[in-house]
């Protein structure tokens, strides 16, 4: 597991908002419209993120642009890792503001492990994990929802 702590005041504030918006009673409208270019560019950068190369303000502004105020935020994003073996997937945990890489033997925390198979499939740029659902995002931005 490789941790990349994303410490920035922007992301701190943002992840507090994210935590509030994923808590019980938060809005439960997942955004299913196609993802925008800024967000997709952020996902591509995360694909091969080495420590120190992740621009945290990119992440924060992409997320803010993508998700409107009435829309539920994902708990995190799981995607295939292109750093090479032994790493398989990486997880951008939005509530803990951590980017972690995992190999085949390591298990991600409970809500996220379920997304591993879909992330590894290769057809999706990232899997957004919510409390009750997952939203698969293709490289062109189109989405598909999977109930958990």
């Amino acid at each position, binding site marked *: 597991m490789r941790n990349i702590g994303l410490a920035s005041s922007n992301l701190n504030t943002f992840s507090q908002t994210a935590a509030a918006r994923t808590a019980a009673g938060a809005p439960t409208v997942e955004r*299913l419209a196609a993802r925008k270019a800024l967000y997709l560019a952020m996902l591509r950068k995360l694909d091969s993120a080495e420590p120190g190369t992740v621009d945290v303000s990119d992440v924060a502004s992409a997320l803010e642009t993508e998700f409107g105020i009435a829309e539920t935020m994902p708990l995190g994003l799981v995607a295939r890792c292109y750093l090479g073996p032994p790493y398989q997937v990486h997880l951008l945990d939005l509530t803990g503001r951590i980017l972690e890489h995992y190999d085949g033997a390591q298990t991600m925390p409970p809500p996220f492990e*379920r997304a591993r*198979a*879909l992330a590894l*499939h290769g*057809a*999706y740029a990232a899997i957004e994990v919510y409390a009750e659902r*997952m939203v*698969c995002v293709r490289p062109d931005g*189109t*989405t*598909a*929802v*999977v*109930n958990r």
Partner: protein
Amino acid sequence: MSSDVAISRANLNNIERTLSSLDREQHQMLAHVGQLEVHQTEIQNQLQLLMSAFFEYVESDRKAKELQLAETRIVKVRQQLETEYGHHGEVRRRAVGVLQALDVGVVTHETIQSTSEDVMMAAPRYWLAPALVALAAWIRDDRELAQRAVAEALRRDMDKTSLFFSLVLRRYERRAGAARWLGQFFARQDPTALHREFVVILDAVATGAFGPEAKAVTSRTIQEWLGQLSSQSGFADSQRQRWQETLESLTPTVAPDEYAILRACSPTWPTMEASLAAVRRNQLVINHFGGIFDGALDVPLRLEDQIDDLLTTLVARFDVEELPLRQQEAELATIIECRGDTQAAAKRFSVAQRALEEAVDFPTLLTNAAMHAEEAGASRGTQRLAVAMSRDWILAAHETLTAATRDSVPGEIDVKIGDWQHVVGEDADHDKIAKVLAAYMDVEAEKRVGSVRFTGGPLLAAVGGALGLIAGIAAASVVLIVLAVAAAAYAGLGYHGLGRKREAIRTEEALKKKQASEKLKGCLSELVDYREEWSKQDARAEEAREMLQAISVSQYELARPDDARAVLS
């Protein structure tokens, strides 16, 4: 001592012979018991096979009976349709016949008038009868009669009458009049509750039967409706959900003889089977939509022929009175299609039934035209247009189903052979697993062999014999000594027999190990085949996606060449 009694050798020989014979019989019994165990296993397996074959037979017999019943009943329903509504067919034929006779000019106006008045009496309540009278009156230029007849036809069924006259006027190139009748038709339509005859409008747009004016009215109205419906919250979701159910109805079944070993050995099989059936659906989706767009559309060259086809559809396919019988007919036809499988037929029909409902919303009308063209009365051209208009919803449903299928395939498979269970991961080393099974079987064999011990009767006999011998010598009792010797001989034979018992167990366990190992090999080999097939079928999801993405509405709204020239001039 004089009181010593000479021990008779002959008695001991007898005892020895008897004991040897006992030993032989014991070994034979052991061998028989071993054989019995093998036979018992064989009988159990055969009984299983017999039970499966029996249940399969019962099921196929039931299906054959249901099929026969459906075939008999459908004939009765069709006869009933002909008997009760056959006279409507007469009116329909005359409506198109009148138009064609006028084209050729071989029938007098009086004949046409008399015919139309005949049908007025033969078909009470039927809207087409006064419409035909109005048509005949219009041809004769009898305005007053035409107006009265039109009013009566409108009273009986305003929508079909408006559509009928729109098409008739279009047939005679009275474009402005046709557009006005169409406008009147649209003004009365509620996009959340359209009658089934609306599919004729789609047909006309798809085949270019409408002139530019009427087509403009239609396209504008449809765009407004779609805009209104899309602005409702949850609309896109409900369309996606509806198309998901529709696409799911295409899911095939996995045949009971496929992946037989995997099916028998894996508790995970039910999940694997469902996932395989879902992924095989991709090919069926490609076949269904590919079939709709394959080949040229057969559009009649002459406008009159094209309108006559539409008129025939309008007057023949959408009678409300006939609807219950048409629904019964469709249900029985579905049972026949499913070869007597009433459960599969009920599932398929519950989706197709929507195409026979009297009033549906516009998106449902599009779904019905796209997926159940026969029941909805939609031509091939209309199917194409309906699919093109629903494309975004179909794509969203297909994407959702694809993602769900990819999520559902089990990564780890449980394998169970006898009491041995193992979890097989995606990149598992099959040779290693075989070794684990072999080691397990060896341990179990050794346990069984180890349980064969010098115990029970022979042990007691040995102890008793020793004690008896001591007592006999001490008491100089020949009887005791003889008994002690006999007991010792029995104990000796028992001990000697242990080796053979263990050998028999080892042979049996070796056979079991071989069978288990072959079963495991077959199971893992089928697992490899399963994963390969699954990946291949999953790749088709991308093909289906590309095919659907390439569809656009404008490709399927045809224009007649004569209309294009009229617009330019």
